């Protein structure tokens, strides 16, 4: 009963918020130094959530005291919730008889609720190979999207929908890869909403009969039956392996397949060696060099 109630409550919260759970973000602030003959004793950073109306002293307001005179004043604020807007301002102060005399606010900078973004293709957990179309879907307040593989920027500033990128896995090692995206609300500010990270696995071959994916062609060959299994390879892929076919089995290795392994009109390259010791191997649309 309790579990049921909790599950219902959790579902209700998801419906009410209307946004996916997002990662906290970090804001970097910098401003011009203030010169005062009495000596600037420090700065205060003021910010508050969901309101740009000063003074920032209501609910969700925070004040950070930065004593000392920094010739290049700056600070970093982490743990900000992307589902809320934040307005920032800075004051300078002097100290007279141990009392801080504070300036008016600087210009106020507001960071809005950040755009939401998610990776919609490929599907999380899928096996991929060859050239993969990676697609992100972002909220309407997005002006640009960056796509990342293993945290490394692949293509910056996709500014038009669909936010898609042809990810060439042919030169990559087999194995798991993470995909993520950032969605920007401004073309000049690096604060962005971040997607959840999904994981996919780059594979090199698929058995047509069993529909099992293999990370290496050698694994696919070794696992094939001796009754004429067909091993399919992606078009333009590079099989960087030294293949040894030494079993008494009959196997067809067909390259040049499309993303769905439905038709093969291209070629697959073998830059390594290819040795046939026993049995029969039919090679179709592969280039060995």
């Amino acid at each position, binding site marked *: 009963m309790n579990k049921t109630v909790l599950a219902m409550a959790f579902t209700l919260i998801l419906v009410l918020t209307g946004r996916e759970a997002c990662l906290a973000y970090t804001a970097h602030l910098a401003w011009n130094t203030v010169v005062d003959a*009495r000596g600037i004793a420090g700065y205060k950073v003021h910010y508050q959530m969901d309101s740009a109306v000063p003074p920032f002293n209501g609910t969700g307001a925070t004040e950070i005291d930065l004593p000392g005179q920094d010739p290049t004043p700056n600070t970093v604020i982490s743990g900000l919730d992307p589902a809320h807007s934040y307005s920032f301002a800075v004051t300078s102060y002097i100290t007279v*008889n141990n009392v801080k005399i504070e300036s008016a606010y600087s210009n106020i*900078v507001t960071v809005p609720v950040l755009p939401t973004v998610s990776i919609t293709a490929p599907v999380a957990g899928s096996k991929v190979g060859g050239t993969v179309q990676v697609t992100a879907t972002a909220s309407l307040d997005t002006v640009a999207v960056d796509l990342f593989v293993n945290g490394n920027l692949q293509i910056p500033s996709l500014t038009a929908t669909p936010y898609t990128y042809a990810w060439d896995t042919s030169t990559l090692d087999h194995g798991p890869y993470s995909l993520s995206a950032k969605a920007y609300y401004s073309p000049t500010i690096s604060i962005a909403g971040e997607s959840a990270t999904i994981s996919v696995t780059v594979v090199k071959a698929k058995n047509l009969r069993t529909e099992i994916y293999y990370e290496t062609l050698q694994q696919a060959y070794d696992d094939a039956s001796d009754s004429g299994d067909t091993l399919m390879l992606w078009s333009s892929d590079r099989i960087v392996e030294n293949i040894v076919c030494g079993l008494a089995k009959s196997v067809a290795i067909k390259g040049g397949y499309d993303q769905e392994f439905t038709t093969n009109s291209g070629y697959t390259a073998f830059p390594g060696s290819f040795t046939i010791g026993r049995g029969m191997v039919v090679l179709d649309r592969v280039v060995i060099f």
Partner: protein
Amino acid sequence: MKKQFLKAIFILAAFLLLPGFGDAATYYVRTDGNNNCTGLVDQAGTSGNCAWRTLQYAADTVQAGDRVMVGNGTYQGFMIQSHGTAGLPIVFKAQSGAANITTPNANTDDGINIESWEGSPSDFITVDGFNVYSQPRMGIRAIGGNGIVIKNCTSHHNSSNGIFSGDTPNIQVLNNITYANGSSSYEHNIYISNALSDGSVVRGNLIYDSNAGNGLQLNGDWEMGGDGFIDNALIENNVVYGNSKKGLSLISIRFGRIQNNIIYNNGPAAGGIHLVDQEGKNFSTGNVVVNNTIDEPNQASIRINDGSDNNYIFNNISVGATGIRFEGDGNFQSNNYSSDDGSGLFVNRTGRDYHLLQNSPAKSFGTAIYQEKPAPAVDLEGNIRPQGSGFDAGAYEFAEAPLPPAAPTGLSVW
């Protein structure tokens, strides 16, 4: 051989553990202690590790660097004749401000008596936080020691002085309350006397309602020997009022500074501040009287007698019909604000709040320096001078609301 060696080690260790050897000790005195105790632990008892019972036992035992912490309660006074050093003073401290001395020590008629004796001056003794009252002679008395400190004490209703010193170089009398002293004699709440008392500091005391004498008197007193002058005294941040005669009676003092004092409603006598000679000799000279607020309707606010010269009187507020009175020539004055009735000057003269009004004419009436003598850098409350366009007259600098600094510009967030 081995036994002899161990015995030697034991004797050495016992010697090192003797009180007063090596590191200074902290002793305790309580009304439920006992002089058979070690005095080293702040607890009641009759022997062993517990507090002493009498201040006199502590005074007879302590050595340089020792501290005596005194619990609340009522005690007989004490006389101390040992001495500390500049780096290792002997300190008697009332722990919680309720250690009362109501009967004199066993040797003199004073509550606390710091008494040098021939060949052994009682130097560097500190007395802190005692309430001393109703003594047959003086509340606290110090004779002949250098570097004595009397602070945070209350001394009242004593027959003679509340606090008295004679020939005490560099004595510091700090943040004490003295009142209603001199009940049976023409004596003063605080009296620092004789020519060896050079470098005396009297700061932050509340001195009021003496029965017959002055609030504070310094007297170089040539009749008592030496050069007959007290040199380089500093008298500051005191509040002195309602005393029977003068507020500050300064006899035969040279090169002193009298600053940031509030003095009101004393006398009638010679003046709120009186710079004068002793029996026609040793005229007070070379003193700076600056930034005091003096409100004396019954006498001169500042009076300098004929013969006292080269005194510098500036930045003071003088309220009263008599005002500042020079009886002779050779003194210097500037930027003193004088008023018969003090109207428009203070926040509440009747309530004795002598802070300046926003539009007080004493604001910025003073000068930063006069005849190469600087005004004090801070006021009675420690506020920096100046805060407006110039130095204010009087003991208080008006706390101008300082302009805030400029707001930062160019805030960027990324």
